[in-house]
C-alpha cells in the first residue's frame, strides 16, 4: 500500500542528487553519526541520572533542563541528515525490516522523551518514586538503543 509513496520518494531530486555523488552519502552518514553521539550524551546523561547513576549528586530536573537543548539539537541534526539518506534509497528501505523497526521505535522514543520522560524529570521528587524514575530511564535507553541499532542494521541488508 505504501510502495507507491516510496516510489514517489525515490523520484525526488534530493535523493537522486545524493545517489549521483560518490561522496555525499558517506559525508551525510558521518554527520548523522556525529549527531548520534551528541544525542547519546544528552539523552543518557539524564537516563543515567534517573537510574541513580552518573550525576547522582544533582537534581534530576537540573540535569534534564541542561541536557534538553542539546538533545533537541542532536535530534534535529539526525532528522535533517536522515531524510536525504532515506531519499537516496527508499525502495531498499521499504523492503528492509530494520528500517520499519526504526520507523516504529523512533516516533515512540521521541514522543516518550517529550511527554512521559520530560514530566518525570521536572516533576517534584515527592511524586516520583525512585522505581518510576528508574523505569522511565531504562525504557528511554532501551528505546534509543533500539532506534540506533536498527538504523545501523539498515546498512546490512
Amino acid at each position, binding site marked *: 500500500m505504501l510502495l507507491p509513496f516510496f516510489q514517489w520518494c525515490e523520484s525526488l531530486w534530493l535523493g537522486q542528487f545524493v545517489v549521483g555523488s560518490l561522496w555525499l552519502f558517506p559525508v551525510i552518514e558521518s554527520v548523522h553519526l556525529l549527531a*548520534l553521539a551528541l*544525542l547519546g*550524551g*544528552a539523552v*543518557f*546523561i539524564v537516563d543515567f541520572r534517573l537510574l541513580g547513576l*552518573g550525576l547522582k549528586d544533582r537534581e534530576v530536573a537540573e540535569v534534564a533542563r541542561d541536557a534538553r537543548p542539546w538533545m533537541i539539537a542532536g535530534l534535529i541534526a539526525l532528522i535533517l541528515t536522515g531524510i536525504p539518506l532515506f531519499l537516496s534509497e527508499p525502495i531498499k528501505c521499504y523492503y528492509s525490516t530494520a528500517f520499519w523497526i526504526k520507523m516504529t521505535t523512533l516516533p515512540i522514543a521521541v514522543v516518550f522523551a517529550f511527554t512521559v520522560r520530560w514530566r518525570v524529570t521536572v516533576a517534584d521528587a515527592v511524586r516520583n518514586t525512585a522505581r518510576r524514575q528508574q523505569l522511565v530511564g531504562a525504557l528511554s535507553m532501551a528505546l534509543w538503543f533500539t532506534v*540506533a541499532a536498527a538504523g545501523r542494521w539498515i546498512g*546490512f541488508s
Partner: protein
Amino acid sequence: MSLLAYCEWLAATEGSIALHESMYMYPIVESTHVLALMLFVGFATILDLRLLGLILKRVPVSQVAERLLPWTIGGFVVMFITGVLLFYAIPVRTYQSIFFWAKVIFLILAAINVWLFHTRIFTRIAEWDHAVITPKAARRAGLASLVLWGAIIVAGRMIAYNWFDCDIQPQPAFVNWAAGCVVPPPTP
C-alpha cells in the same frame, strides 16, 4: 614478519574467516560499536561542553568529570574490544586503509589530549572548579577533544568505503604510500 604479512596470516585464521562470513556476528559487533559510541563519545561530549561552559554550568567540573569517568572508561573499553574484533574480521583491507591510519593517528592525538588534560590542567581544578568559563587551557582541551573524537568517528565510518583501496589502481602516489599498497610495476 612484516605487519602486512601478519595481517595476511590473521586473515587466514579460522576465527577471522568465521567472523567475516558470519551472518549475524559481524553486524552485532558493528552495532555494539555504534551503541558504545553513543555512550562513550556522548559522555565525553558532555564533559567537553562543560569545559566550554555550554552545559551543566552550575555543576562543578570535577563532579562532571568524576561521575562520568567510570562510564566513559567502560564505554571506551567496549569500543576498543569491538573495534579490535572489526579489524580482526577484515585485517588486510583495514590495514591497507588510509582511513584506518587516519583514525589511529587521531586516536593517538586524542590520547595525548586526555593525558595532558589530566596531568597539566585537571591537577589545578580547585582554582576553577565552579567557574562557568574555565581557563583557556581547559577550554582548548575540550575543543580539541570534540574535534578529535568527531574526526575519529568520520574516519572510522569511511573505512567501509573502497575509493582508496589498494586493489583499485591507479591511486595517487600518496595513497599507495600511506596505505602501504604493494603495487606491481607497470608491464611495458
